[in-house]
């Protein structure tokens, strides 16, 4: 388990991370969401001891990262996929990492196969595409098969197929009891991957909750020729009805088919009937504006 409390980073007068607190539980994928420069990377670097915190603590299994006996065995980290020596081959890079993390050198080939880089293993990293470097970084994070994964913008440079692959990887990791923290500035990348969202803006956590609780319940929006009559019929059928913009009715938590059935039963003429889901993007702007 990871416990971050009051984590703060100041550079001179500038506060880039401001009193950030959260807990990461095993078995969950947490999305760390915010625009570029919101403090995601700095928070992750403080969690892993790369950047000293001005104040606050980040504990992994009760101790600071740097005091773990073998931190690579506990936390698999992908922070910056370009932080590799371009002259080494992918395989040489991972074999060095394997020695540092204390796993057999043969793990390098296993994780290369796992991320789909087996064919590029003996090529210099300098010739890798951004997506390949990202996969190499993920391979490095998986070397010890650690219980905790901390990935900063892992979808950068991945194609849609790669993003889907990563989603399955992270969901599978959480399903096996692992803990995942995954940052992104693109909402669509994480929406279907995470159980929980931590939204950060200008260094502060502005929202923390399950995807469902932050996005609100899905529902149905309906327009009728005679909205008042339909609203009465829906309320009589036990639905909550809200007046939306320009005569539209919003029925939270209702399936469009159920709303349509009520309308059909009462002979109400419909102009429009469709599902609504509160957009993650809207949520984001409303929170960080």
């Amino acid at each position: 388990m990871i416990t971050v409390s009051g984590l703060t980073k100041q550079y001179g007068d500038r506060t880039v991370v401001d009193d950030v607190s959260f807990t990461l539980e095993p078995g969950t994928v947490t999305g760390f969401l915010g625009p570029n420069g919101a403090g995601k990377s700095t928070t992750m670097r403080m969690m892993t001891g790369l950047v000293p915190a001005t104040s606050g603590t980040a504990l992994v299994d009760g101790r600071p990262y740097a005091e773990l006996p073998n931190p690579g065995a506990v936390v698999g980290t992908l922070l910056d996929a370009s932080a590799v020596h371009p002259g080494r081959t992918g395989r040489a890079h991972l074999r060095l990492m394997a020695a540092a993390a204390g796993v057999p050198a043969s793990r390098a080939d296993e994780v290369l196969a796992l991320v789909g880089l087996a064919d590029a293993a003996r090529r210099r990293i300098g010739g890798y595409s951004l997506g390949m470097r990202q996969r190499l970084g993920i391979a490095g994070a998986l070397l010890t098969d650690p219980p905790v994964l901390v990935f900063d913008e892992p979808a950068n440079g991945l194609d849609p197929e790669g993003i889907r692959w990563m989603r399955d990887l992270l969901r599978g990791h959480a399903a096996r009891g692992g803990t995942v923290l995954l940052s992104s500035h693109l909402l669509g990348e994480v929406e279907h991957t995470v159980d929980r969202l931590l939204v950060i803006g200008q260094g502060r956590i502005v929202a923390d909750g399950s995807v469902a609780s932050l996005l609100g319940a899905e529902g149905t929006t309906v327009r009728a020729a005679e909205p008042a009559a339909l609203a009465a019929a829906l309320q009589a059928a036990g639905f909550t009805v809200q007046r939306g913009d320009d005569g539209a009715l919003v029925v939270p938590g209702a399936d469009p088919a159920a709303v349509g059935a009520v309308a059909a039963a009462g002979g109400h003429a419909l102009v429009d009937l469709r599902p609504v889901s509160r957009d993650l993007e809207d949520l984001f702007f409303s929170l960080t504006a």
Partner: protein
Amino acid sequence: MNATTTTTTTATTASTREHAVTTAVPARPAVRPGAASPAALVALEVRKSLSTRSGKALAGVSVLLAPAAGVIASAASEEPLGSVTGPIGTMAMLTALVLMSLGVLSTAGEWTHRTVQTTFLLSPRRGRVLAAKAVAVALLGAAFAALSTALTAGVIALMEDGVSWDGAGRAVATAIASGAAFAVTGAGVGAALTNTPAALTGLYLVILGVLPVVRTFKPEVGSRLDPAEAVLALAQGDAIGRSVLILAGWTVVALVAGAVVTRRRAVA
């Protein structure tokens, strides 16, 4: 986290499920529970230094430059050599200056390529990492200097007649020690400046540019600071105490500066 502990309701599905899961997700590898031993860290740093083209090239140059220069000098010169200590000292200085770059790359190179991130993520005790790097480049520096000097001595033995081998043992020991000292100095300065071009330019500018100029104006100051001159003097048995102090001073000051920066610097 154990992939094979999946529980299922019936025995038949359990066996197929387990098979499927273990194929997709291999069982957790054997992971060392504690931190890497100092010896393992040193071995890792030796491998890192020799795993890049620049590292291999520097290793090759450090071994071959001095004997190659010896062949040319010997072929070009008509003068009898006299003692071997002078030529061995000169070649030791040349080799040590090359080995300094190997040290710089082992520390500053990690910051320049940002691989220091991975290094500190897996070994967060930064002091131990720098110590391992210092030992690793000292070993590499001593080994390459020893090889280089052996080849240089071979060249002299083959190409020169009637040279005096008096003091050759001390000259060889000087070559090996200065190879180690210069490599560690390079590692220390590299760790202090965390930037390869800055560390290389700074070191060579001071040793090959500033100090020789100082020596022309204030010879007594220059000879108290110049590590290259100290190597020459030591190989020939001159000013032994002072020369050892100069080389040790460069090594210690560089390492302390490197340790201070390594401990504090944020990996952003």
